Each structure stands twice: as structure tokens, then as C-alpha cells.
């Protein structure tokens, strides 16, 4: 799983990210539906949070939907039923996700590798059943009609365009935050754990604590994505917490390129775009197509879009240096 640190480093410096940002700012004016963009950005945030764990710490969580869903429900309930303001609702959602993440993390980090995946999956299924039966989640219907309200009591979020720029700002902040974490000494230790855990232990690092902190950070950010998603779409449902959602976020990260900064974003936009495109046309076959992409990714395309691009750039560089 060794991939280069920054997808941009080999390209034209800061030009590419700035161009992408400009494109994202311009998107609603180019005729892209703002709600679609907000939804895709939420899933991109979710995938980036997940990638912090899989790509940079080497832990495969198969239960990230639980944290996404926990925040989606908490924020939805607080904003709709308890009448909280959106910013407080989102903060509370993040706190709930991090709390659930702390409990699940404490249990899951007791095993490694494949067992870690199975344990997180099982714990997430437990959270799912709790949401299925709890009185405040609306059971099969979910929480419908969550109002967006006014940010800080001033900015009405009901306007799609206003809300889009706020979501974009949050997304950029989360993205930069993750870049910062990965490049910090803390991030270096995480990568050391990913590459060779026994060595990290022998160097004196308290590996369990690093893993737990990475897990909680990742779940908190996944919660942020879930909380904002509830405000964007106006509902929280069982789908948010179901294991298929955990699978989707894995696929987004894998398809885009795990262990790269841009990969999960590209993966999320691809999958959400694909679902949008296919939903009305192929119905049940969406699941089959998602499954097939999974299989193709694992067999032939493990580095993902960004990983393959980087590998190609590197090969070219080597070829140029030789000639």
C-alpha cells in the first residue's frame, strides 16, 4: 500500500488544486445542480475521513456507516425535533459520531488486519439495529423534513447556492486539515504503523493510542459529513447507517486511490455521479454494477485513478531521465 505522499507534488505545483477549486466554485454557474454538488462534497468528505484510516494508517474499517449515520440521525433529531440551530446540531452530530467512534475503536483496535474489519462491521451492524429499533429514529421511514434553518441565526441555508458555498468551505477546510494531519509528525507515525507495526512498537510508540486517535479523528470527520448531508438533503434514514454505505465509502476510496489526497474525492464524485446517472435507468442493477466495479478494482486496478496516474507519471519521469 505504499503510494506517494502528495498527488500534486509531481504535477504543476499548486496550479492543479487551484484550478479544481475554481471549477468547484464555478460549478453551480455552469449548470450543475447545487444539491448534487453538495451531496457529492459530503460523500467526498466522508471518503477523505475514511482514507485517513485506510490509506494512512492501514486500518480497514468496514463500519464507517455507523458514524456517518449516528451523526446524521443526531443532527437530524436535534435540528428538527429539539429545534437546535444548524451549527450546534452539526457540532453535536460530530460529537456523537466521535463518541461512538471512541467506543467502537477501543474494542476494534484489540485485533489487527482482517479481524479489525470484521469487528468494525459487526459493531456497526449493532449500531444499525439500535437505530432500527430506537423510538426517535422513525424506524423504516427515517427522520424526514429536517429544516436547514439559519446559520448563526443570520444566514438562511434554505437557499441552495448560499448553502453550497458554505459546504464547499467546510469541505476545503476538512481536506486541508487531513493534509495537515498526514504531514504532521503524528501522520508520520501513522504511516510508520501502516508500513511496519512491530517496528513502530520497537521504536517506543504507543501504537494502540495512535491508532485509536486516528480512528476517533476519522469517525468525527465521517460524522461531520453525515451531519451536513442530513441538512443538505433534509432527511436521515437507515441507509445512512447500513453496511452497504460502509461498502460504498470503501469503494470510493479504493476507486479514487487510497493513500492519496485527491483519490477519495475523485472516487466519491465518480460513484455519486454514477448512481445519479444510473438510478432511473437500471434500477436494481446499480448494486450489481457497484459490485462489479469492486471486483475490477481489486483484481486489476488496486492503485485507483490517482494512484495509477502517479505511477504513470513516475514511469515517464524515469524513462525521460534515462534518455
Amino acid at each position, binding site marked *: 500500500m505504499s503510494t506517494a505522499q502528495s498527488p500534486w507534488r509531481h504535477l504543476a505545483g499548486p496550479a492543479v488544486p487551484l484550478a479544481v477549486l475554481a471549477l468547484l466554485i464555478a460549478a453551480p454557474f455552469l449548470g450543475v445542480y447545487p444539491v448534487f454538488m453538495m451531496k457529492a462534497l459530503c460523500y467526498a468528505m466522508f471518503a477523505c475521513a475514511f482514507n485517513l484510516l485506510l490509506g494512512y494508517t492501514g486500518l480497514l474499517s468496514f463500519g464507517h456507516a455507523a458514524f456517518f449515520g449516528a451523526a446524521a440521525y443526531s443532527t437530524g433529531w436535534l435540528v428538527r425535533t429539539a429545534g437546535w440551530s444548524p451549527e450546534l446540531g452539526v457540532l453535536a452530530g460530530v460529537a456523537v459520531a466521535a463518541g461512538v467512534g471512541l467506543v467502537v475503536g477501543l474494542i476494534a483496535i*484489540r485485533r489487527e488486519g482482517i479481524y479489525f474489519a470484521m469487528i468494525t462491521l*459487526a459493531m456497526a*451492524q449493532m449500531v444499525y*439495529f439500535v437505530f432500527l429499533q430506537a423510538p426517535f429514529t422513525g424506524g423504516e421511514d427515517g427522520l424526514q423534513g429536517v429544516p436547514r434553518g439559519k446559520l448563526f441565526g443570520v444566514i438562511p441555508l434554505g437557499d441552495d447556492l448560499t448553502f453550497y458555498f458554505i459546504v464547499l468551505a467546510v469541505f476545503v477546510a476538512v481536506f486541508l486539515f487531513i493534509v495537515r494531519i498526514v504531514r504532521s509528525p503524528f501522520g508520520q507515525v501513522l504511516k510508520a504503523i501502516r508500513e511496519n507495526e512491530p517496528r513502530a512498537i520497537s521504536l517506543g510508540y504507543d501504537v494502540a493510542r495512535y491508532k485509536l486517535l486516528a480512528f476517533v479523528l476519522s469517525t468525527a470527520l465521517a460524522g461531520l459529513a453525515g451531519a451536513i448531508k442530513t441538512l443538505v438533503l433534509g432527511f436521515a434514514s437507515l441507509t445512512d447507517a447500513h*453496511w*452497504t454505505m460502509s461498502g460504498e465509502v470503501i469503494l470510493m476510496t479504493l476507486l479514487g486511490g487510497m493513500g492519496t489526497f485527491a483519490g477519495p474525492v475523485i472516487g466519491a464524485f465518480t460513484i455519486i455521479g454514477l448512481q445519479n446517472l444510473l438510478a432511473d435507468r437500471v434500477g436494481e442493477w446499480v*448494486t450489481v454494477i457497484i*459490485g462489479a466495479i469492486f471486483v475490477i478494482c481489486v483484481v486489476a486496478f488496486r492503485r485507483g485513478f490517482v494512484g495509477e496516474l502517479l505511477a504513470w507519471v513516475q514511469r515517464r519521469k524515469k524513462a525521460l531521465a534515462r534518455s
Partner: protein
Amino acid sequence: MDIFGIPIQAFLGQLLLGLVNGSFYAMLSLGLAVIFGLLGIVNFAHGALYMIGAYVAWIGLDRFGINYWVSLVLAPIVVGVIGAMIERTLLRHLYRIDPIYGLLLTFGLALIAEGIFRFYFGVSGESYPVPEQLAGATNLGFMVLPNYRAWVVFASLVVCLGTWFLIERTRLGAYLRAGTENPTLVQAFGVNVPVLVMLTYAAGAGLAALAGVLASPVIQVTPLMGSNLIIVVFAVVVIGGMGSILGSILTGLGLGVIEGLTKVFYPEASNIVVFVIMAIVLMIRPAGLFGRER
């Protein structure tokens, strides 16, 4: 007669239902453990193979009039062949890389299978009739024992113990255990390891299909039956540890019983009790009840 305020009939009924579910947990976790031992792959598709087994039986009866007893043999063969093809074409590419890719690939396969069956059969589910030889119930005096449920527990115990015997007491089993320890060396001794690996996956798939046929008269046959079960089976595997075959069988049956009893005393928690036990076991004994720390 009551036990803790619960009528004994209801109590024993749930106990038996718990044993029935436990039989399925045992058969599936056994297959998972054997496949993981030799292939190093956690087979997420195991639930899907179980579901396909049940559908082979249902389609066989509904479209072709194939009876239960024939399906009991036919479905494992059909699904075993599917398993062998999956191993040959896809899984073999993954043996040298991180095992999480095996989980992800089989997860994708499970989604494909589930999607296809959902397209053709919907999600509402089909019911499979209990075979006439096993219909009805026997009055044991203290309880009425539904014959089919007793048969499921009996049949799966025979199958599980047979598998144990095959692996621990026969020459083929010795190859298998040696292949789990060191495939290169076994290959050097002239055993065809790739074929052994393929047959192992096929056998695990067949075992899952057999569980599916056994389950079809007691539950609704739906495309989702596999994925709902496999997550519980994963928890069972974590609790038991994948090191021991008898351990897998015991853990599966035991957790089925505990789940059944939870349904009697606190029904709201019956869905999550296995996961709670998993969390507790991980805190006390992280390697699992019968596992070895690696």
C-alpha cells in the same frame, strides 16, 4: 410449569430455534475458517453462496419439481462448481497480497449476487415447503418437537462432525492442514496445492449451500438472507477464533442458543446480543475463545 415466569413450552421452543440458527452459524463459520486457513481470504461471499444454495432448492422445486432430498445434494454441487470457478478466475490473483483485498473482492461478488437475485426475485421472499417426510411434530411429553427443526440440528451436527473428521483424521485432511501451515513445502512433496485450494473453496461454498437448503423451509428465502447472516457469522468467528474446528462448531451452536434465549427474556436485544458478546470477549480475551494469538 414456568421457568423465570416464561411458559416452558415457549422457552424450549426458542431454545430449539436457537439451536437451529446456531447450526447455520456453525456450518458457515466452519466453512469460513477452513477457507481462511488455506486461502487467507475472509470470504464475504459466504452469505451469498448460502443464499444461492437456498434459491437453487427453491427454483428446483418451483420450476422443475426437484424434491428436497435431491436438492440437498444438487445445490451444494452447483454452488461448489460456482465456487471453483470463482477461485480459478478471481481469487487466485490475490494470494500474495494483503488479505483485505480478498475481503473486498468477495464483498463485491456478494453485491453482484444479491443484485442479480433481487432483480429476478424481488425482496419479498419465497417460502419453501417442509418436505412431507419431516412435516408435523412429535410430542415428547414435556414439549412438542417440530420434526423438521430437529432434523436441521441433527443434519448439521452430522455434517460439522463429518467435516471435523475429514480434516483431523484423514490423509486428505492432513494435506489440507499441512497446506495451511506451509503450502510451498506441501507442493514440493508432490501434492497439487492449486487443486487442493480450489477444492477447499468449492467445499466451503458447498457447505454454505447445504446450510442454505436446510434453512429454506424454516425461513423466508430472500436475496438478502445471506448478507444479514454473514455479519453475525463474522462476529461468531471473532468470538470463537478461527484456530479450532470444534471451537467453531461449539461457538456457533452456543451463540445460537444464547440468541434464542434472549428472544425469550428480552426480545429487543436479540438482534444485538451476539455483537455485545463479541465486544465483551474482545475486552477479556482478544484472540477469541478458541483462538491462538498470532
